[in-house]
């Protein structure tokens, strides 16, 4: 009790260094825990990009590549799936629903995704969130287009705007614009903080209509295009799509279905379980977060070294104090424990401060981070591991406190009761 009083009063007496030490420990612990939180949030956001889809099916190729171009809209598909195969699998008895997607065009760098109403009905992200429109409705007509929220925001399009889609994926309007067949914006999607926001959506028929006169990947000769108004929905026959998402009626059927699709006889297909591909992809890109974590741990060590420095310099100033305590019958071991206790107290309070900093900033910054970076940082209790890390920090603080305490002990032995100021 006396030890506690002395440590507490002595720290209070050195208010400035105590506060600076507490801040440096608190902020470093806060930074480290904050990175842990962001890591968790990033991982979760990442794996929540797509939910409830059991399989992604596309032409045979790399599974991660398939995931990238269908879910993240990165990279280009190499081959397509015939509509026939799609319908066959769609009507498989194990399949609950499918979402077809057709890729290959863009609008000012944003991907154009051809799909149908099943997309708006069935697509889920972050567990069970559904796509919704802030304005307008889903595209139904051949030349209807819906915009992801980020596209609408960046390009400042409103409902009714007429836009031209470019063949291929280029940032500018290019040499191969489908300018004979402009689209009309009929809907703007609500922000999802997923790649959905960065794409535009048309119907599968729209994709076919754009390419109606194209022969072997070459555009029609100018003046020979079929005029847009003459294209009727009934006349369009969808030949192929790029890939599709599917959900099974019962999850236990997923693997069997996956095998069946892989062995599909009509054409070479691949079916990917999104969760598996996502974690595979994440482990590929997560070395960055590990680097961050290592940096944060070093910051904590620097914070503790700062404390060591301030305690070590204080030992000399406190020779008097220690001689007085010695004269009053306090043994040298008690003197050591006083100093060790002080450093332990500092790190403990610093660590608590750090936890406070993290939770405070998560609460304060959560909406801002979500809006700016599309990253949802959940507020959650410290994990067992984080508790043990915090315990390690405090133990480290105590261990570091032994160094100045040892110096004080040596001083106490050599000074005895003699006056040295």
């Amino acid at each position, binding site marked *: 009790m006396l030890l506690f009083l002395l440590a507490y009063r002595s720290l209070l007496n050195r208010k400035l260094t105590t506060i600076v030490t507490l801040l440096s420990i608190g902020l470093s612990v806060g930074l480290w825990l904050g990175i842990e939180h962001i890591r968790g949030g990033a991982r979760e956001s990442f794996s929540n990009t797509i939910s409830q889809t059991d399989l992604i099916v596309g032409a045979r190729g790399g599974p991660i590549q398939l995931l990238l171009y269908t879910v993240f809209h990165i990279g280009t598909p190499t081959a397509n799936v015939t509509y026939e195969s799609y319908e066959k699998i769609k009507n498989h008895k194990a399949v609950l629903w499918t979402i077809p997607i057709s890729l290959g065009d863009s609008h000012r760098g944003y991907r154009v995704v051809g799909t149908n109403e099943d997309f708006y009905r069935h697509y889920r992200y972050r567990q069970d969130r559904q796509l919704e429109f802030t304005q307008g409705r889903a595209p139904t007509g051949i030349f209807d287009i819906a915009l992801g929220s980020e596209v609408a925001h960046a390009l400042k399009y409103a409902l009714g705007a007429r836009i031209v889609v470019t063949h291929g994926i280029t940032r500018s309007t290019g040499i191969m614009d489908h300018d004979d067949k402009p689209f009309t914006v009929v809907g703007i999607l609500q922000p999802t903080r997923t790649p959905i926001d960065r794409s535009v959506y048309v119907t599968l028929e729209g994709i076919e209509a754009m390419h109606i006169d194209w022969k072997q990947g070459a555009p029609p000769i100018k003046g020979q295009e079929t005029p847009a108004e003459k294209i009727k929905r009934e006349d369009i026959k969808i030949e192929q799509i790029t890939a599709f998402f599917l959900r099974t009626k019962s999850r236990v059927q997923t693997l069997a279905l996956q095998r069946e699709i892989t062995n599909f006889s009509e054409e070479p297909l691949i079916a990917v379980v999104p969760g598996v591909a996502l974690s595979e992809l994440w482990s590929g890109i997560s070395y960055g977060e590990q680097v961050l974590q290592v940096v944060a741990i070093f910051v904590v060590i620097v914070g503790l070294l700062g404390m060591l420095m301030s305690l070590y310099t204080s030992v000399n100033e406190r020779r008097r104090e220690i001689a007085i305590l010695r*004269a*009053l019958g306090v043994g040298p071991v008690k003197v050591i424990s006083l100093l060790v206790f002080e450093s332990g107290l500092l790190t403990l309070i610093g660590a608590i401060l750090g936890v406070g900093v993290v939770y405070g900033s998560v609460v304060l910054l959560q909406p801002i981070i979500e809006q700016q970076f599309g990253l949802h940082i959940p507020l959650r209790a410290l994990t067992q591991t984080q508790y043990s890390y915090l315990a390690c920090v405090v133990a480290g603080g105590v261990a570091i406190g032994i160094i100045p305490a040892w110096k004080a002990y040596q001083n106490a032995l050599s000074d005895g009761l003699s006056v040295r100021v």
Partner: protein
Amino acid sequence: MDYSVEIANLNFCYRPAKTVLKIVELNIARGEKVFLYGPSGSGKTTLLGILAGVLKANEGSVKILGHDLTQMSGPARDGLRGAHIGYIFQMFNLIPYLSVLENIMLPCRISQERQRRLNGRSREEEAKNLAGRLGIGHIVTDNVVDLSVGQQQRVAAARALLGAPELIIADEPTSSLDEDHREGFLQLLFDQCRDLGSTLIFVSHDRRMMPLFDRAVSLAEINHT
């Protein structure tokens, strides 16, 4: 005869073969007021360290209140010091981050023996009493850094006396006081020691105060190095 201090054949050195202190015999009776003097470097501080049990004699025996320090472990000597010895430094006696009252009460918080000897009275009450008798009753709630040197030394005296230790060791406590305060301080210290029955060992190089004591010991004479 009942002695507070009994030194026999004491030999002390910080480093081997460099004896600092060699005292054949020094006995101090209970309740005696002893003036110990000697020039700087004569080993005064070292002797006080040995008497207080902070330093350990290499040879001989040093008995404080019948306990032979040379036979005791470090923690045991610390305990003995806390329980039975009041120590007053030359200056800077007080812990700066504690109040005057907290400083005075410290020995009773550190040593249960000292607390026990308050005979059931609260240490706060007793500390205030003692402060009153030493003429510092009005400053007990003050911050120690605001005190004058004279006040500080009285607070130190009060702390050394609280819980009535049998032996008071004062290491030149008046050297930082001017002449008027010096006599006054000494008188207060004598009164309290007499009331409590404590032995006083008072170290100084200033021999003008010598006649006020029961006995004077010249360290230069008893130290046979």
